[in-house]
């Protein structure tokens, strides 16, 4: 595949930050004190690597997912690719333009919907006026902007809200309005950072449907979406990159990723009165490869156990006996297929939602 087929390519992209928490940078007096310490007294500077030599490629027209827990470096990676942050090492090509040397061209090639981005709407402007202002910022000609705004308001079911200010819209409607911006400016690449965070299931469904079917499939916009919802990544993405502690640990289609961890059977149990050491007891059973426990309700002791076994039939009797012997109560037990959560655990040894 030639390099023009890829709309994003990264080459050892790396970003380091000072280890001091952002909240501690308060006022300019503190900043001056810090400068004196760092520059004049030459105190040792500690660093954390938020994005660590990241390499991946995204094909044109692809729906690409970046899956990882909070703090994995997903947002930092998107900020780098959108030129909102400058890298310390490495570079990336976005739509064929080098993010270090051709920043204007990179910005002209993409659109970004950031989490909490509705904050960026003007409270004094109506829904329609906000979209008009955004169109001007992106140089969309007046007539074309007017046509597209009408289309957006119709598609997103916001026609009767056009004269309202975004402050009084529901969170789902605000998110839809944000996505309307992506529709208004049909740049080749769309970066979405946690697009459904904080939305109710219906609003999240509408957003996913709009992004997948309208923007990606119908208009051919390459979508680069970060999420920590594995179901979302599984449902929408052509390929998924798993990110952990600043590194990309795996990239493939969701199906291939799941197949890569399917070495035997996977049994899921919902258990009441689950004790903290139950997982360890199960782990030592013959035929059990691994056990992952997740406590849902610590007060009632209700939780899930996912038991990886070479052959689930052979261990079933012994497994249920052991659970009951430990004083726990099995609510249900079933064979399941691996999820991206299992993939994540396989590559990182940790759960996505830890």
């Amino acid at each position, binding site marked *: 595949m030639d390099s023009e087929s890829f709309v994003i390519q990264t080459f050892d992209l790396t970003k380091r930050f000072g280890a001091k928490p952002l909240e501690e940078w308060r006022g300019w007096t503190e900043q001056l004190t810090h400068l004196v310490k760092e520059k004049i007294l030459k105190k040792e500077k500690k660093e954390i690597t938020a994005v660590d030599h990241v390499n991946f490629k995204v094909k044109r027209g692809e729906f690409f997912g970046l899956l990882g827990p909070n703090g994995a470096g997903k947002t930092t990676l998107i900020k780098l690719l959108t030129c*909102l*942050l400058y890298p310390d090492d490495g570079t990336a090509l976005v739509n064929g333009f080098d993010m270090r040397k051709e920043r204007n061209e990179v910005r002209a090639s993409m659109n970004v919907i950031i989490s*909490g981005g509705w904050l960026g709407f003007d409270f004094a402007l109506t829904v329609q006026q906000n979209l008009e202002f955004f169109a001007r910022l992106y140089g969309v000609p007046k007539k074309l902007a007017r046509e597209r705004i009408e289309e957006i308001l119709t598609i997103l079911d916001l026609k009767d809200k056009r004269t309202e200010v975004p402050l009084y819209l529901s969170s789902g409607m605000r998110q839809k309005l944000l996505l309307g911006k992506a529709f208004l400016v*049909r740049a080749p690449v769309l970066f979405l950072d946690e697009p459904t965070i904080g939305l109710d299931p219906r609003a999240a469904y509408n957003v996913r449907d709009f992004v997948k079917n309208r923007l990606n499939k119908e208009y051919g916009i390459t979508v680069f979406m970060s999420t920590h919802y594995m179901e979302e990544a599984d449902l929408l993405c052509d390929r998924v990159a798993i990110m952990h502690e600043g590194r990309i640990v795996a990239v493939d289609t969701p199906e291939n990723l799941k197949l890569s961890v399917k070495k035997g059977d996977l049994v899921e149990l919902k258990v009441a009165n689950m004790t903290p050491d139950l997982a360890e007891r199960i782990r030592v059973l013959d035929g059990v490869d691994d056990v992952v426990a997740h406590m849902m309700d610590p007060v009632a002791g209700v939780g899930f156990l996912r038991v990886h076994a070479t052959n689930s039939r052979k261990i079933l009797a012994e497994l249920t006996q052991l659970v009951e012997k430990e004083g726990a109560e099995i609510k249900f037990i079933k064979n399941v297929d691996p999820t991206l959560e299992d993939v994540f655990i396989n590559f990182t040894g940790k759960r996505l939602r830890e």
Partner: protein
Amino acid sequence: MTEELRMDRKATLRAMWAFVKRDLKIWTYFKLNFLIELAGIFSNLAIYAIIALVAGEAVKSFLKPYGGEYVSYVILGIILNTILSTSLAAPYWGTMEAFWSGRLEILMISPISTPLFVTGTSIGGYVRTFINVLIYLALGLLFFGLRLGGTADYALAGFYILIAAVACTGLGLMGASLIYFIDARGGQDPIRWIVGILVGLASGVYYPLSILPEWVQWLGCLIPHTYALDAARRAILGGDFKNLTIPVHRLFGLTPLLTDILMLIAFSVVTVPLGWWMYDRGVRKAKTDGRLSRWV
């Protein structure tokens, strides 16, 4: 089906106009605020009109180069200071407003350039000030005895104000860059703070410089306001063009107006490129250390 976005000259002008329209809408969104601002202008003028009644005669001899009348002198000073303060503060407040409202990243991600971004976020302040200046002038002329000289040269005064505004914009950009360099996000930056003190104390906004001790007058020479106020008042209030009123006037043996314009040009030549350079470096620093972002 997809498109790359380019900001040509026409699109840039449209974007600028969109900023102006947006800022006017925000300004007039809360109608009461507008009325409060109007009342503020009226009360400000009233205070100085009363001071003029009490102390006008005492300072008359110092005001000879500016027409000799305190109320016109001070109202014009307030108006000119309003314009220059806007130039000084607009880059800072434009950037701050964008930051606190969560718009900074959205603007920085968009294809607009840094100069357009700074001008766009600042332009609302200039439009507002222009309207306020008209209100000041109208109220001053109608109710508070503002008298403009019969031989007023408005074009000349406007030229001086324009150059001074450019110089102040440079200082304002330097101040705004400190948002990025030292996180001066609390509503004040050290440069504007120092200039603000010098303006109030030693630029001649409220009283003539010549009543101050010599060393304080020299402090006034460090800011562009002093020269702009001197020249614009002479031009508008019909005073004389020979009297030396600022210590710098005595240095070069030139006429006061020529010295004023040369000083203002010198300020502009230094502050504007330095301000842009500092602002640009500041943005680069913010994008390198990532401390400016509200998107986390």
